[in-house]
């Protein structure tokens, strides 16, 4: 059986949004499968419209299909309506490219961008006809792997994954292909053999090759490799220069509506602003800018090929890209093309950029001050002043924007009600500024509950309870009740709780995740499907305490579930940064100031690639305007 299209086709007439399952996108490939090639099925364990735009998956899809020894196709989590029909008709999970059964691939590799998709991972493995537990699999089953930011704590999925990949995937997929190819040629005899060979690749973690011991109080005593060849600490992979990887070259153009439906060009990877809550900024260091000419070329050729009229310049903080104003000026307005800058720091958002990006069409503007008071922003090292924010907001309103979105976190370490209420005050002032330009000026305030993440200085912090987060949201609601120009939105604190559980959980959560999945808990990141009761029941059925995992402050000496994984960052650097946070002391951005040896460059013999030796004008951090240095450094 190579394609299930004929069986699938009549079912598609009966489901919502059937275009999710047909493939046929511009850029889609129909690779020729051969026994001497390693076949990868790249899976995004969420709905197609969320998963399709994922750049990581698209980059690997192209890199693998360019190789002579590999083929790659894609799959996404089927929505519940199609899943029910597939199960009723005995049909498996399939690739959208050639509608090949997932179980016929050599590797089924998941992109893990968010914790709440974990139950979908199990569902996809099961729909593929593969045992969900790695230990129950036979040599003929696909190898189940995962990559993406969540793999920096792969432990909650340790029972289900054959391997996890840490860091940039561009290079390591070739090495994995080599190992799997050799195993196939040798007759694909024992799963243990290939897993051991995979564990020898830098950046590949094989959970089954490690033993975990616990103290009587429930904390981890030790994590130890079960084989002499297996590293005690698995290091992440980092590509040295983004210029060597101008991918995706043929971005997929979906036929149906998806999120981020536009051309996306990654302008740099990594960020050293050092926001202490931000896992992405910690684990993707150092900063590697794409050369401006390559960016221009990718924009021009991408727009021409796709027909899109919008391009997003993506990174963790796009206004920091050297020469951003010129790139935007060269692109925006030309042939009705609009530019969106999805991650904008307010201190680098100038009238100049505002004027440029509004030339064609005003894309939505989102700023992320993250916290409502200067004190709180020092704690989290997001060193933007109120004047920075008001300046950016004024730039935008003066250039014709009438509304914008501001992102905040609540439940941050040391947060007081004064800090929380500062959010309302900032919002109010922004609307006041806007009203000077437009009668109907407004802001949308989006408040998320803070989830401490591994490999951040806040990894030791006990997350706020649901009751506390709810109380803080209600404080804001009350404070903003009379403010017509301010619209408040917030993330469900109950979902935040489970994100926190999976974020810093350990392998004892495996049976919990399995039970939630077995009882129907899929698409947990969708509010209409999220079910806290399923999680509560599963935790207590397995004698585990959510409170212990989520709300407990960790101590310096505690072995963390991810201590045998390395993002290059020294643990003592993170601990010092945590102490600095509590002392309300900021840390400058090391791309423009001397190195403070976090470990991400020095440990791997790589360094920043930044075209401009000076920071963007108008900033506070690393700009010479307002640098708050720790006395200890």
């Amino acid at each position, binding site marked *: 059986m190579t394609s299930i299209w004929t069986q699938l086709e009549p079912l598609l007439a009966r489901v919502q949004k059937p275009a999710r399952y047909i493939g046929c996108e511009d850029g889609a490939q129909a690779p020729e499968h051969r026994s001497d090639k390693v076949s990868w099925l790249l899976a995004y364990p969420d709905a197609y419209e969320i998963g399709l735009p994922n750049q990581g998956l698209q980059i690997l899809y192209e890199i693998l299909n360019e190789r002579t020894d590999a083929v790659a196709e894609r799959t996404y989590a089927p929505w519940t309506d199609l899943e029910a029909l597939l199960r009723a008709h005995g049909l498996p999970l399939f690739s959208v490219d050639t509608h090949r059964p997932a179980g016929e691939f050599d590797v089924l590799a998941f992109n893990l961008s968010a914790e709440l998709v974990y139950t979908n991972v199990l569902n996809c493995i099961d729909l593929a006809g593969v045992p969900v537990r790695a230990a129950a699999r036979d040599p003929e089953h696909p190898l189940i792997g995962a990559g993406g930011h969540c793999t920096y704590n792969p432990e909650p999925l340790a029972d289900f994954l054959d391997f996890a990949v840490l860091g940039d995937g561009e290079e390591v997929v070739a090495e994995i292909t080599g190992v799997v190819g050799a195993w196939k040629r040798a007759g694909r005899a024992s799963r243990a053999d290939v897993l051991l060979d995979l564990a020898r690749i830098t950046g590949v973690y094989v959970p089954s090759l490690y033993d975990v011991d616990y103290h009587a109080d429930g904390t981890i005593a030790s994590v130890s490799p079960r084989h002499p060849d297996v590293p005690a600490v698995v290091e992440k992979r980092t590509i040295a220069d983004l210029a060597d990887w101008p991918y995706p070259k043929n971005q997929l153009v979906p*036929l149906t509506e998806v999120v981020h439906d536009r051309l996306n060009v990654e302008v740099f990877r990594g960020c050293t602003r050092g926001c202490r809550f931000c896992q992405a900024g910690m684990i993707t260091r150092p900063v590697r800018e794409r050369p401006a000419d390559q960016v221009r070329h990718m924009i021009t050729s991408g727009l021409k090929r*796709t*027909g899109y009229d919008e391009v997003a310049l993506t990174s963790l903080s796009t206004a920091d890209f050297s020469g951003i104003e010129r790139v935007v000026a060269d692109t925006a307005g030309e042939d009705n093309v609009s530019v969106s800058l999805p991650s904008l720091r307010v201190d680098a958002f100038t009238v100049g950029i505002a004027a440029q990006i509004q030339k064609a069409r005003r894309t939505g503007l989102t700023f992320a001050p993250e916290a409502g008071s200067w004190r709180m922003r020092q704690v989290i090292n997001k060193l933007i002043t109120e004047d920075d924010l008001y300046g950016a907001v004024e730039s935008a309103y003066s250039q014709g924007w009438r509304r914008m979105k501001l992102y905040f976190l609540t439940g941050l370490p040391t947060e007081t009600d004064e800090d929380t209420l500062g959010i309302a005050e900032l919002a109010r002032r922004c609307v006041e500024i806007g009203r000077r330009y437009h009668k109907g000026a407004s802001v949308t305030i989006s408040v998320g509950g803070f989830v401490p993440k591994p490999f951040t200085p806040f990894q030791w912090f006990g997350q706020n309870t649901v009751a506390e987060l709810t109380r803080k949201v209600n404080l804001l609601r009350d404070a903003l009740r009379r403010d017509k120009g301010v619209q408040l939105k917030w993330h469900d604190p109950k979902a935040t709780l489970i994100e926190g559980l999976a974020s810093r959980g350990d392998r004892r959560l495996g049976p919990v995740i399995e039970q939630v999945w077995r009882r129907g808990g899929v698409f947990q990141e969708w509010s209409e499907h999220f079910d806290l009761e399923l999680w509560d029941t599963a935790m207590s059925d397995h004698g585990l305490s959510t409170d212990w995992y989520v709300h407990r402050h960790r101590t310096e000496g505690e072995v963390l579930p991810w201590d045998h994984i390395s993002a290059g960052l020294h643990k003592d650097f993170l601990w010092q940064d945590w102490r600095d946070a509590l002392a309300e002391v900021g840390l400058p951005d090391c791309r423009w100031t001397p190195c403070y040896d976090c470990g991400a460059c020095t440990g791997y013999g790589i360094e920043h690639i930044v075209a401009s030796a000076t920071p963007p004008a108008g900033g506070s951090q690393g700009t010479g305007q307002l640098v708050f240095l720790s006395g200890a450094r």
Partner: protein
Amino acid sequence: MNSRYRIRFSKLGKIRFTSHRDVARVWERALRRAALPVAYTEGFSPHPKLSFGLALSTGHESLGEYLDVDMAEPVDVESIPARLDPCLPIGLDVQAAAEIVPGTPSLQQVVTSCTWRIEVVGFGPAELRKRVEGCLGADSLVVTRQRKGHMVTDDLRPAILSLEMMDVGPELLAELATQPRGVRPSELVAVLASRPGDEVVEGHVCRLHQWMSTDGAREEPLPLPLRATLAPHAEARAS
């Protein structure tokens, strides 16, 4: 002064699972890729000036879809199909293009009926024939549906302009009015299979023609050029 062009296209195969709105976005991108001088609306949020005909249900194929495009400058109309085809996904094909005079009424206004080929899954040929005859012989076919929270009763019979069995397979050829009260193929199938115990579903559905009728004469908004024949398209499904 903008020039307006009418384009006729087919939608066949896997791409039939895209929605009407999806197809509109595909067209916007295709026109940009073809570098045709599409006219844009003025204002803060400029949009290409396109207008589509009657929506085709997700899952239905068609040999006669239309869109009208305003161009900021005149275009060699003969070149339009060749310029657009490489920019369209598999399953969407331009069949004809023509300049239309300013003031031509919109497609939504002028189309009065459509010819459909409808596969009916669940009836044998004899039973299907009986149902078709019953339907044609009825004076009225009253259906009730919920609309904006109210129950609305309609007689579908006047909108069924013609209905016959195809020579092969359990398929119907039907001409259904689009106004004042149009009938969708799924409604026709529901009417044919409205007896208790009927387990019948709509199979493949293909819109063969859209018709404008003026004083009893029937013509298509844009006829196919003489060299094109429908039959190969009609039989070859892109999937």
